[in-house]
């Protein structure tokens, strides 16, 4: 059996402090319910500059300039110890500023919903077109010259037509309009989130082409796996983000669809992509997702209470290329997939058994045979002050404890195992974004350098949030070094027919 391979990745961040203030759901609710709250008053003093965001260790790990394990060598809190000479450009992607992102919103808008002030639009159109990645790979940049507006007109759209404002350093530079007068699935709120997700996803896809050996017209299929939903009131989440994003980058030979399962969706999508490639349906599949404006500043109250900056100020996005076996890229072991079944149970122990232990045991392996695990890689500087604990560390402890229960490790080894199989969380709390797959870029490097042989990627999802089921969700897959074996050893039907015919002929001859 020949396996599909992990050919390339891209990881991008967009620093969006004004979107945090005005469109982050926590802040927006606070403005509606308690407009005079102390939290809202404290926000401006807790926002970070673009330079602070670029120098922030976890962000540099996300775009690939440092390894997540290098965070262990940076003094905590990380936000007080930025990296010197940090760059917006990384090995796996880059970090974009908010003004540039507003231009991107305009460039991905097919329905004239994004309205920008004429002078801002002219300035930002130039910047977007000159960008070496967006300027090269986005084919819809003509949108940047369409329907320029004025601040007065933008103000009246906000006041009279329920448009959502776009601020830059507190200055009004544009808005996003509703797409229908009374359709609850096409309000300005919804369109804002959807366009943000689309634009940031298209940014990651462009970076995937820029940083890897893949051209837009080589892509056969796109799987989008964010947590947003697009549609109208008759089909509220009908889709399709995948094709809408592929269109921006000129993936003219691709089709695609959206996969949803809260934070577990990226791991599901990777399994689906691998299966499509291995089955020979498609040669090049891209799994991607844009970021979430709703989650910006989600734990802001706790951060302000602890007087730390609002570090949930970035949209995250990624794009991952799964292709046919080239004999060198790490393989995705489609024969070792862990799944949390409907009947698995919701206790953490049952979940870890189903998604970690079961697939390994089925393949004759144990937890010890996996060098590094990547589950929920949320940055602990975001989650610990909010009372959610250090999530990656908790996952590593659970995996180690499971190993202890199975007598793979001694009880005294727990902390040592956690250290060996893990890494610090380095990803913004953007739901689906931190879920296992941000490590894939680093994993390719570590495997190809011979630092590790095998990694397990784990996606976990809280399905109760949709109020349809209390079931949990989880899925895992294995990526490991390529042994160079690219030919499929399996026997096809014609060969079997020939073998049977030859045997029968021999048998007939023996009767003579």
């Amino acid at each position, binding site marked *: 059996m020949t396996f599909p391979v992990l050919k390339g990745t891209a990881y991008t961040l967009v620093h969006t402090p004004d979107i945090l203030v005005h469109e982050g759901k926590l802040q927006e609710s606070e403005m509606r319910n308690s407009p005079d709250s102390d939290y809202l008053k404290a926000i401006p003093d807790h926002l970070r500059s673009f330079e602070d965001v670029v120098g922030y260790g976890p962000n540099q790990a996300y775009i690939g300039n440092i390894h997540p394990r290098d965070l262990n060598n940076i003094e905590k809190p990380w936000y007080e110890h930025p990296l010197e000479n940090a760059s917006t450009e990384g090995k796996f992607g880059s970090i974009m500023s908010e003004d540039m992102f507003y231009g991107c919103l305009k460039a991905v808008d097919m329905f004239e919903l994004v309205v920008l002030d004429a002078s801002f639009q002219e300035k930002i159109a130039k910047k977007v077109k000159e960008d070496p990645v967006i300027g090269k790979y986005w084919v819809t940049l003509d949108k940047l010259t369409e329907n320029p507006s004025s601040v007065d007109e933008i103000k009246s759209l906000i006041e009279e037509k329920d448009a959502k404002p776009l601020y830059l350093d507190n200055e009004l530079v544009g808005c996003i309009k509703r797409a229908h007068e009374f359709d609850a699935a096409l309000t300005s709120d919804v369109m804002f989130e959807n366009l943000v997700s689309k634009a940031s996803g298209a940014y990651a896809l462009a970076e995937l082409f820029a940083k890897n050996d893949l051209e837009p017209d080589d892509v056969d299929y796109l799987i989008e796996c964010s947590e947003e939903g697009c549609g109208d009131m008759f089909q509220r989440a009908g889709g399709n983000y995948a094709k809408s994003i592929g269109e921006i980058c000129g993936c003219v030979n691709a089709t695609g669809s959206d996969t949803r399962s809260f934070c577990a969706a990226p791991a599901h999508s990777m399994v689906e992509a691998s299966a499509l490639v291995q089955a020979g349906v498609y040669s090049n599949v891209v799994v991607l997702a844009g970021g979430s404006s709703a989650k910006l500043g989600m734990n802001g*109250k706790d951060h302000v209470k602890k007087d730390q900056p609002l570090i949930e100020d970035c949209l995250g996005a990624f794009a991952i290329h799964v292709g046919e076996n080239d004999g060198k890229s790490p393989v995705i072991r489609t024969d070792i997939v862990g799944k949390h079944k409907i009947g698995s149970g919701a206790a953490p122990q*049952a979940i870890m058994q189903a998604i970690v232990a079961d697939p390994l045991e089925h393949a004759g392996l144990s937890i010890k045979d996996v060098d590094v695990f990547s589950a929920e890689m949320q940055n602990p500087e975001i989650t610990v002050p909010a009372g959610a*604990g250090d999530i990656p560390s908790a996952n590593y402890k659970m995996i180690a404890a499971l190993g202890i229960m199975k007598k793979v490790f001694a009880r005294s080894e727990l902390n040592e195992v956690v250290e060996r199989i893990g890494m610090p969380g380095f990803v913004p709390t953007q739901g689906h974004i931190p879920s296992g797959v941000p490590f894939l870029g680093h994993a390719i490097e570590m495997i190809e350098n011979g630092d590790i042989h095998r990694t397990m990627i784990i996606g976990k999802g809280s399905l109760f949030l949709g109020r349809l089921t209390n079931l949990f969700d989880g899925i895992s897959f294995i990526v490991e070094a390529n042994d160079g074996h690219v030919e499929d050893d399996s026997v096809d039907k014609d060969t079997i027919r020939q073998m049977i015919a030859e045997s029968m002929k021999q048998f007939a001859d023996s009767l003579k």
Partner: protein
Amino acid sequence: MDLENQQRIKDLTDKYGKDNLVVVLGGGEAEACGLAAETVSTGDPTFAGPLAGVQLGLKAYHMFELKDEVDPAVYDEQISMMEMVLDKDAINKEVQEYRG
């Protein structure tokens, strides 16, 4: 604590009475468990939800504290791994504080 859960606990208390209810927590972090225990006993300290200023007086226990009350085989199957992982003593101490 989640605003919706605050409402559910308030409704259950109205329906069954506080003497007929205990709250069993399964949280993994001491501070968050303490916050939940505080919310159902003396009210929502964040003043955000339906239990803001409402003293239900319910007693909360963490599942770790109820080990002797359940079938050891079930406990072993469902909880023992997490016992190794979480700071059990800190969680229990925090939750006990709100039972007076």
